[in-house]
């Protein structure tokens, strides 16, 4: 393979940009890819989020449960510590109450932990780290999120004990954070004894976990995007390469075709030149000799002059016949003068006479409806097909027909020979070339060639689209040549002519 030039690449890119097969190819490759990737991404993100959300919730529950167990432990300790004073005391034993208060007030832990006590009316009795609360009634206190705090704690205490979560000012920093409290009731004294613990660290851990998940999802998206872009580039590059290769192949084909056309043209010219020189020139020279001799004999009164004239006339007639033959071989005038029907009819008759193969021709009653280029294509295809049949098909009967229909015009050639596939060996090559010629002729006219070949024979359908039927308006109009291509010439026409 030769190297790929920049020019070729730009050409290939150009053809990708142009609407056509290259772009269609690229679209069919990329659109499903993009759709699939997008769909998968959304699904993956959704699932990942759901899973991690579940995990995070579990983590949160576990952490808070641990805190709650801790609280319960603290209170169990407290309960044990005051048991000595509380258990034997009477409901109005003020001294015992004072001792219990002191015991509880001493039980501080960590930087923020302490035991608090409210009586059931809402008055704070113990709050060693927030002493401003002490001896004031806090019934009806709500936190900044409007959650009842003290009332709820007292209710829980009345019921025996329980957890409550609310926003509370952190003694160590003075900031409002969420806390969880556990409270039990000293029913004899109508006291609610509890302790709380801030769970801001738990919440932080949870939100950090959440952020990490988000981060991971985003990273995954990044990877997906990168991989997709890579894939798209690969598709694009492959597309460019395919287009370039196709273009090269087409170029090569075109070059070969051009070469073949030149060769054929040269060969044809050589043949015509030879025929003109070998036959026509020689005949005309003969005529000239005869005429000159006749003139000399006339001048000298020789009666044989008329013999020479006769000879000259005979030679001229032969020359005319010869010109007619050469001209017909080059292009049958009947095709231009009378149309495809009579031309094919003549072709078939001549074929039958030459080969002895029974040949039928059928056409509709219209003439000269095909545009010149389509006529020529049909005629040449018929010639090629008949040549193939004569050389390779071993057929006994051939049927040729031309008919118009709603999609255009079709020429059908069928034979009862042995079919194309069966004819291997020497004949196959030239026959293949013939079929390619037919294809190419029709391709140029946006037409279609279908070849159906079985052991029972071959059927060739050559179709040209409606655009190659002459439009009917060339038929109309008064006093005008109805359907000749030349009828559009600008020669003067009589009045009343319409175009």
């Amino acid at each position, binding site marked *: 393979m030769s190297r790929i030039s920049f020019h070729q690449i730009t050409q290939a890119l150009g053809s990708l940009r142009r609407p056509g097969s290259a772009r269609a190819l690229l679209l069919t490759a990329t659109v499903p890819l993009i759709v699939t990737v997008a769909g998968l991404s959304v699904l993956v993100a959704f699932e990942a989020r759901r899973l991690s959300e579940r995990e995070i919730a579990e983590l949160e529950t576990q952490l808070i449960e641990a805190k709650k167990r801790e609280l319960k432990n603290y209170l169990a300790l407290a309960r044990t510590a005051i048991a000595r004073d509380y258990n034997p005391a009477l409901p109005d034993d003020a001294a015992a109450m004072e001792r219990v208060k002191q015991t509880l007030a001493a039980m501080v832990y960590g930087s923020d932990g302490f035991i608090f006590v409210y009586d059931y009316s809402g008055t704070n009795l113990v709050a060693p780290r927030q002493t401003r609360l002490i001896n004031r009634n806090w019934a009806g206190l709500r936190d900044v999120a409007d959650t009842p705090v003290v009332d709820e704690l007292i209710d829980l205490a009345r019921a025996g004990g329980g957890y409550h979560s609310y926003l509370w000012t952190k003694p160590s920093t003075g900031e409002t954070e969420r806390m969880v409290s556990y409270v039990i009731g000293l029913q004899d004294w109508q006291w609610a004894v509890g302790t709380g613990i801030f769970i801001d660290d738990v919440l932080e851990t949870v939100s950090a976990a959440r952020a990490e998940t988000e981060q991971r999802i985003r990273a995954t998206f990044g990877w997906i995007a990168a991989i997709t872009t890579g894939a798209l580039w690969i598709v694009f590059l492959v597309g460019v390469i395919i287009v370039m290769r196709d273009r090269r192949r087409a170029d090569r084909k075109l070059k070969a075709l051009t070469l073949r056309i030149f060769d054929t043209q040269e060969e044809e010219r050589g043949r015509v030149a030879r025929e003109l020189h070998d036959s026509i020139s020689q005949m005309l020279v003969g005529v000239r000799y005869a005429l000159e001799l006749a003139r000399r004999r006339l001048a000298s009164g020789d009666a044989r002059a008329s013999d020479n004239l006769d000879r000259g006339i005979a030679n001229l007639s032969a020359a005319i016949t010869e010109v007619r033959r050469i001209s017909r071989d080059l292009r049958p005038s009947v095709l231009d003068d009378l149309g495809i029907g009579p031309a094919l009819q003549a072709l078939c008759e001549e074929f039958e006479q030459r080969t002895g193969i029974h040949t*039928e021709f059928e056409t509709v009653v219209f*003439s000269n*409806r095909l545009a010149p280029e389509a006529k020529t294509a049909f005629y040449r295809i018929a010639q090629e097909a008949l040549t193939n049949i004569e050389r390779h098909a071993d057929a006994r009967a051939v049927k040729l027909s031309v008919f118009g229909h709603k999609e255009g015009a079709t020429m059908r050639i069928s034979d009862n020979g042995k079919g194309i596939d069966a004819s291997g060996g020497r004949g196959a090559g030239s026959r293949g070339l013939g079929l390619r010629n037919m294809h190419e002729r029709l391709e140029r006219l946006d037409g279609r060639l279908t070849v159906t070949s079985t052991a029972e024979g071959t059927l060739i359908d050559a179709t040209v689209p409606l655009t190659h039927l002459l*439009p009917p308006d060339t038929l109309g109009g008064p*006093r*005008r040549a109805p359907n000749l291509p*030349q009828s559009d010439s600008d020669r003067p026409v009589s009045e009343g002519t319409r175009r």
Partner: protein
Amino acid sequence: MSPASPEPDKFAPGARHPGVAPQARPVRVMIVDDHPMVAEGIEAILESYDDISVIATLSSGQEAIDRVADLRPDVILMDLNMPGVNGLSATEMILETRSDTRILILSMHDTPEYISTALSHGARGYLLKDVPTEEIKSAIDQVMQGERYLCTGTRAAITPQTADGRVPLTNREQTILLQLALGKSNREVAEVLDISVRTVETHRKNIKAKLGISSTAGLTRYALEHGVLQGTGVRL
């Protein structure tokens, strides 16, 4: 050359056999050929006969159509292959107005398809250009006798038919079929084509006979199915 001369009336439509009195006046011959050398050659040859008068030598089919009413020829020697209106179309159109004109098609081609097509367009004979010159005179004589003339060697087996037995439509008949298929009445077709209603009727009858179709709707369908109406917007 004067169309006002009373003499040609003898040979006006209806006089079937003017050849019975060849001495009465020379046969009026018109030559239509776009090759001047051929036209001049034929004229020179014909002028050498006393009973033939070449009244005009024209170079196109259109000219022949335009001037035939004034010149009133008995015989027209018409070249088949001319630019513009070709010999076959010109023949048809001339015969529409002067049906008794005897038209001989001149041609270089000797294939049977040419001859049958010429006859189907109404020509009385088909004359190869490279026949011996006496043949031209005898062809004129023969068609003046009311007979067909087909050049030597190709007289055999000339039937203007397609292989399936149908007679092909002439150019003019195709034009008229198109007009009829478009839904035009005889009168409208006559107006468009600048011919008489009776001529249209004759053509219509011939078309129906040739196609084996009896109704106008049938004609339209036939035309549509065979791609004749392409581009006219007609749908069935």
